[in-house]
């Protein structure tokens, strides 16, 4: 495959993954906050095609799980009745992309609950929570990266274009942020902000903290490009013809930074998703009951969960395809623009 078509394939795959998470409500069979107190820590249910009598079913069916007598977390399948998996069922209401209200789900269990990936301690469907939690985590990464790049672009452009003492001061501050280990910076900024806040505010707070931590590196890269672009012949020619600063920036200088900004975006988004997960995992990020990949993993800090309910680990696996996608994207972008090698990109991580 040629480089452009590889890039297209990569973007298509990433787009499909994101679309899947964006339409989480449709793919998730249940409301992520709906509790089923009768079935805490139900293990993942297997869809079957062959029933107990050896008959083959074209559409999958499942057996309802029932608590074993005298136990609170041991389940067994009730093999007497095969319950067909129903498709395009009406269930809990949700909003597609946050606006369009719908009640249609891709699949559901009908009268018996169907937990494909099991349930958590409150009997909430893990699959639904992973999908909806992905919205929170990915959105934090995307908005955080967007904010960081805007800040970095502004500061880098100002420093590179104006030069002089302004450049000096801004770059010294950027060096400060680069000198701090980012996890300490994340910790410290979060430490000095309110601890217990409602989920939406916490989400915004996390995004802002992440963005404030990461701006220095893109700012330095943008500055380097602006510095060199400012002295290019065609820019000086345009200036000689009487072009204003705004025109020069818009028409000649900022387009030069596009490749760096795009590549940085592909590197920063997965990093920031991980930052959100880290904060939420440690209890400093998005709080319950709103799911995020990080706070779902927090239950693994309990020994009994770790020992008995391995499926609680699945949110950590959910992010791996996204990471892979972004990593390939970053390396393709860099290869495509011929600015630097993949190895250098990996050094930035």
């Amino acid at each position, binding site marked *: 495959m040629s480089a452009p078509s590889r890039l297209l394939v990569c973007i298509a795959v990433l787009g499909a993954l994101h679309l899947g998470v964006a339409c989480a409500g449709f793919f998730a069979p249940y409301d992520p906050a709906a509790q089923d107190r009768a079935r805490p820590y139900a293990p993942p249910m297997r869809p079957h095609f062959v029933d107990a009598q050896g008959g083959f079913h074209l559409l999958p069916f499942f057996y309802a799980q029932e608590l074993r007598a005298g136990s609170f977390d041991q389940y067994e399948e009730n093999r007497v009745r095969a319950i067909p998996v129903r498709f395009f069922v009406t269930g809990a209401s949700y909003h597609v992309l946050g606006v369009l209200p719908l009640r249609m789900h891709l699949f559901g269990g009908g009268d018996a609950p169907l937990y494909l990936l099991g349930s958590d301690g409150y009997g909430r469907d893990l699959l639904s929570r992973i999908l909806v939690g992905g919205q929170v985590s990915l959105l934090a990464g995307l908005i955080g990266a967007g904010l960081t790049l805007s800040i970095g672009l502004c500061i880098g452009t100002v420093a590179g274009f104006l030069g002089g003492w302004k450049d000096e001061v801004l770059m*010294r*501050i950027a*060096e*400060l942020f680069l*000198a*701090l*280990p980012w*996890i*300490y*910076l994340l*910790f*410290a*900024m*979060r*430490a*000095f*902000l*309110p*601890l217990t806040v409602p989920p939406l505010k916490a989400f915004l707070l996390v995004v802002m903290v992440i963005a404030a931590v990461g701006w220095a590196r893109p700012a330095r890269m943008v500055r380097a490009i602006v510095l060199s672009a400012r002295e290019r012949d065609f820019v000086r020619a345009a200036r000689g013809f009487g072009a204003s600063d705004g025109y020069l920036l818009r028409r000649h200088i900022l387009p030069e930074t596009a490749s760096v900004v795009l590549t940085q975006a592909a590197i920063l988004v997965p990093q920031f998703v*991980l930052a959100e*997960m*880290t904060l939420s*995992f*440690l*209890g*400093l990020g998005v709080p319950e009951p709103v799911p995020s990949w990080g706070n779902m*993993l927090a239950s*693994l*800090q309990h*020994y009994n969960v*770790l*020992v008995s309910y*391995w499926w609680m*680990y699945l949110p*950590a*696996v959910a*992010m*791996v395809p996204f*990471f*892979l996608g972004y*990593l390939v994207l970053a390396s393709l972008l860099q290869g495509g623009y011929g600015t630097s*090698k993949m*190895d250098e990109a*990996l*050094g930035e*991580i």
Partner: protein
Amino acid sequence: MTRFFLRRLAHATFLLLGVSVLAFLFSTLAPGNYFDDMRLNPQISAEQLSALRAEYGVDQPIALRYARWAGAVSRGDLGFSFAYNAPVGPLLWTRARNTLLLTGTATTLVWMLALPLGVWSAERLGRPADVALSWATAVLLIVPDLTLALGLLVLVVRSGWLPTGGLVSVGFDGFSALHRVRDVAWHMVLPVTVLVASALPVLLRHVRAAVAEALQAPFLRAAEGLGISRRRLLYRYVLPAAAHPLIALFGFSLGTLLSSSLLVEVVMSWPGLGPFLLEAILARDLYLVIGGVLLSTLFLVTGSFMADLLLYWADPRIRAKASRP
């Protein structure tokens, strides 16, 4: 030469100063302080509370507090922890020791693995063995350390192969010296594995790229013609030529000794700085957090300073540049 180092030193001092100011500025953004929770406690009267606040000086203006704190730091005293009612310095040090034990081991291992593997891989650039290794590192690279740490933990807990947390077993005080060393080493296996696995791919790729580039140099053809053995050629001639980017990376490795393992420590309940600082954050133990941030910055700054020293010693180009006025 002295000017070169003086300039580096001034830069490092500036960074430390800036970080401390930044940390204090952030702390003023925070609503509430350590003593606010105590208002809910009926056993503590308002007078006692205001006496406490006055004693610890939390109501004073930020500039005054910073001046007092900076004065204390210049005397080697990092401040006072509210929660532990003890000076921050010794508290941090007991925890930092455990962190350094972990990261020191991991960093040594990573370099011992990355150097030979990188050279080996660069020598076979593009051949099946090199491609296989590249794929292996790519797989390690896409698995974030949180996923890896939790995954290993789940695996180990279910199989019972290794201890899953802490630094020592129950009854450690009664063990003989040899038994103690073995016990701690046994507990370190899991966190060190995660740290090595997360640091190895990046480092390996750098070593491979640097050595592959150095292998192109014409002087190597000459050396080969002179009949110098392959092994001697690689480690005696190529590696020093490829050293420049690696030394900078080594400085970075040294600098992140205190910060690279925070998350892994929390996940694996290793009694290092990670869980300690997390608790301090949750308790709003201001000076403990600032002390931790400052200590880790000190490490980073020292790491890059040492990389500069090493580079000056190893790379004649830098010596030439530094001696020029």
